[in-house]
């Protein structure tokens, strides 16, 4: 086994919560649609030859797209404070993001997990279990 630092790891191709919130709040689209659309734009950007499609880029492309702009012009990476340049897609008609957005329906939230906070045992919890494990790593603040 080696203890070697990782340089330029594969960046997750799914969005952060703040990206999703930004899209779903500003455009009033369901959360699932926002998540899948950003994921699709990240994949699309990567397939266009930009292997630096980092966190933030998918959301930014999508925001531009929804604002009627050309999504694959220069996209400023805001979250990380640096600039990325995306190349033009070879065939814009194959944009998977549009399909995702158009076909999406309202997300059914699963009350069994979220309703009522900690009131029943079966809900997802933020218990810490001793012995190296946080079942949910978010500390309970309320």
């Amino acid at each position, binding site marked *: 086994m080696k*203890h070697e630092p990782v340089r330029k790891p594969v960046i997750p*191709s799914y969005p952060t919560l703040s990206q999703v*919130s930004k899209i779903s709040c500003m455009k009033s689209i369901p959360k699932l649609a926002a998540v899948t659309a950003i994921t699709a734009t990240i994949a699309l950007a990567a397939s266009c030859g930009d292997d630096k499609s980092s966190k933030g880029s998918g959301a930014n492309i999508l925001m531009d797209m929804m604002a009627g702009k050309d999504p694959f012009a220069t996209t400023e990476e805001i979250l990380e404070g640096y600039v990325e340049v995306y190349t033009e897609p070879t065939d814009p008609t194959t944009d998977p993001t549009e399909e995702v957005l158009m076909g999406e329906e309202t*997300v059914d939230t699963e009350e069994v*997990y979220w309703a009522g906070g900690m009131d029943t045992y079966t809900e997802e919890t933020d*218990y*810490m279990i001793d012995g190296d494990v946080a*079942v949910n790593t978010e*500390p309970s603040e309320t």
Partner: protein
Amino acid sequence: MRRLTLVMTHQCNFDCKYCLQKHEDVFMPVELGEKAIERMRQELLSESSRKDSSDRSSDDPEETSSTKVQISFYGGEPLLARDRIEHLVKYANERIGGMPGYSVRYEITTNGLLLDESFLSFAKKNRILLALSHDGLAQDQVRLARGGKPTREIVDQKLEMLLRAFPETIIMMTIHPDYVDQVADSIAFFHEKGIRSVSLVPAHGERVSWTEEKFRRFSQQMEKVKVLYERWNQGDGYFRVIPFENKIRNYIRQKDADSAMCHFGCHKLMVDADGKYYPCSHFIGRDGFCIGSVEDDVDEAKIRTLESRRVEPEICRACDLRFRCRHTCACANHGHTGSMAEVSALQCEYEKLTIRLADEAAAAMIREENPRFVERMYKP
């Protein structure tokens, strides 16, 4: 401080092959447990009065919702001190549960041997989360009873009893390097039994020995676990592999992987059976890591001294995964290498592995537009 762990005993009725704890006949006196709970109550009262004086006019619903407090019972095997636990739960219900604005819940990690219907009924009534330590198909090779007897048959019966009372029971699985080839089948066994949450961690310490070959085989097993995780979360399915879910959740929230860990008494306080405070289960009884006692209160200067030694390992500073990795977790580092500022190769490889697999699984489930997964992970 809203999380308190009481080490009820050092004694255990198991003799697991990786366990580093000395099985001494030490039990926490009930009076000491009461004092620790009383200390917690006093702190919560101070916190409550500080909050009142700083913002009396708040209409924020979050300010008025109940604050959750967690008390855990730890061991050895905590159910060897079952009568004391029952007493302390009742005591904490009265002293803390009765405080306006606070609700108290409990957690016990047990090997399951002493579970019975009567205790399960008590647990249900008192909101006690029971986590079961079970090593799946390797149970009889690794988790033996004192005297060397196998335990799987009886613990499997207890698991079924537990699941009837608590369908959301969590399994805590430790991977012994000599039995790595059964990991995926063990997870499948738990799934078949009806378990929906499994945590797993590689065993470490002087009683086990990981080699490159063993870790390679473990990685292969984890690849299979990832496939199962994706499969069992399709449609209406729901199955949590907790190491994956923690990595995904922290990335989505852009949280440092270490941010919610123990941090030397900041997020939780561990009270040993003799009343001494420690920052984490790993440090119990270790010289130099006591951070006060029930009698003398928390030693803030000692916490600051320990915190100053918890530095980012030199080798990790060049790593682009460091914000997603538990490389600054003092107890994990100390457990693996004997130093709080050094990460073991095992820990490093395990972190890389879980991050990669978690990301692959998350991306696949999102691509499939899995609404249940997305809702779970993107809950604000």
